[in-house]
């Protein structure tokens, strides 16, 4: 019983991170139908930048919370600029090209970013400076930390802000219109190029926040960390129904929980043949099952509902 509760708590934490990253995939997919495989690397760069800033300011005597906030803010700004540049330099020139072309470009960009990160930050694991005094709380036999509380609340806050943006603001309305029918949206006066750029910028900002979260959760970063994280978040987006914002949020949380439960019980299920380090397989089992039986995802519209 205490394993169950513990794994639910861990799953929720991880799921909040997946959800934020999945939103970046789904926003871009919803508007231009591109799976931006470089998005995981944007998240990784977010973690790296935040680490660098935090390490640089660690000895400055500033209060830790301020240092963390500055790290987060710089990461967000850098990632927004990166997302904007990716769209501008790599994807926009390919608008109207066959679908496979930008997809391959995305994979290429992901490699480019990994290598750039390797050159800047090196091949080794980078460890997070011990900035946060960890508090551990326990309920019903399970424990969680203040870091986990911060991750889940910040994710909830960011997602509410996104929902507000998409449903209550002018640019959000333009984004929804463009996702449903770009030609007609442009007839209404929507500058499609701007909307597409915004989708990349906002998605990258969410990615940066997620990057800071994984960084502070695992207290470690590596130039290849974006690959697995990106793949899992992509799975979460597909699970929720790619192109669907609520789907990405739900898919992220669900995947986090599935993974954590899987990791918690895999030993029992396989008679200790497989250990919890096999937890990564669950995301891909989920991906395969969804693609086989419900490719439109849990919340995905039927094809006919999409404009």
């Amino acid at each position: 019983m205490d394993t169950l509760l513990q794994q639910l708590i861990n799953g929720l934490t991880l799921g909040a991170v997946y959800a934020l990253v999945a939103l970046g995939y789904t926003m871009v997919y919803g508007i231009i139908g591109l799976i931006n495989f470089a998005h995981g690397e944007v998240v990784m760069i977010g973690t790296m930048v935040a680490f660098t800033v935090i390490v640089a300011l660690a000895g400055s005597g500033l209060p830790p919370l301020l240092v963390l906030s500055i790290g987060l803010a710089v990461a967000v700004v850098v990632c927004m600029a990166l997302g904007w540049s990716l769209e501008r330099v790599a994807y926009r020139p390919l608008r109207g090209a066959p679908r496979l072309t930008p997809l391959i470009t995305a994979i290429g960009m992901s490699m480019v970013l990994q290598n750039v990160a390797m050159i800047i930050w090196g091949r080794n694991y980078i460890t997070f400076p011990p900035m946060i005094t960890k508090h551990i709380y326990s309920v019903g036999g399970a424990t969680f930390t203040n870091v986990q509380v911060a991750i889940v609340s910040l994710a909830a806050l960011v997602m509410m802000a996104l929902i507000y943006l998409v449903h209550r603001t002018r640019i959000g309305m333009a984004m929804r219109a463009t996702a449903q029918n770009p030609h007609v949206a442009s007839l209404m006066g929507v500058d499609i190029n701007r909307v597409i750029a915004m989708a990349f910028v906002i998605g990258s900002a969410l990615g940066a926040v997620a990057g800071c979260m994984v960084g502070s959760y695992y207290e470690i970063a590596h130039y290849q960390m974006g690959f697995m994280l990106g793949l899992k978040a992509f799975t979460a987006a597909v699970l929720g129904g790619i192109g669907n914002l609520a789907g990405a949020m739900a898919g992220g949380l669900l995947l986090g929980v599935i993974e954590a439960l899987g990791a918690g019980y895999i030993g029992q299920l396989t008679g200790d043949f497989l250990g919890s380090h096999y937890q990564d397989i669950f995301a891909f089992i989920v991906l395969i099952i969804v693609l086989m039986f419900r490719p439109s995802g849990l919340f995905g519209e039927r094809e006919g509902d999409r404009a």
Partner: protein
Amino acid sequence: MLEVTGLRVSYGGIQAVRGITFHVNEGEMVALIGANGAGKSSTLRALARLLTPAGGSVRYRGKELVSLPPHRLVGEGIALVPEGRGVFPRMSSLENLRMGAYARNDKPAIQHDLEHVLQLFPRLKERAQQTAGTLSGGEQQMLAIGRALMSKPKLMLLDEPSMGLAPIMVQKIFEVIRKVASEGMTILLVEQNAKLALEVSQRGYVMESGEITVTDESHKLLADPKVRAAYLGE
């Protein structure tokens, strides 16, 4: 108001519009009729800059439109009601109408125009919160026209508003088109239903395989034996 000279549209190697010249005067309703594939929609899409013409010029109130990006046209006062309506399927009727006013920032006037549109189409008022994708074809056409009106256009380009609709619905929609025209709107009406289009318009152009072959006042075209034979099923 609108002067089109030598307009050409091609898709890859196929020439869909082969250098057509026509004009629309202020306050006029002009019909552009022709069979399937004649190039009518391609012409409208080129006017609305949804595609870049292969050649020719489109002057609107003395301004060249061919160099403008599509999202700037609405600000010039041009609204296209596209073939197949193009409503935003996952937005409510009301949101669709508000999208029509996206480029405007005169809030009180927008509210006023919204009420006017809902008066023109009482059906939309009943369906205000309904998702546009679930509206009937006729309701979607009303919504598309209403949405175009919400941009407060000076020139409306209508692409087959009667397509796929029951006669009673066609009648309703044309009543509104007539009413809007009588209030001074300039309209370029593309229709396969030639009889209907020629009855409501002042002048007409007949398009055949990418070229304009006949033009005259609408009532004369209605009486023209050749036009009657080719487009009015006689």
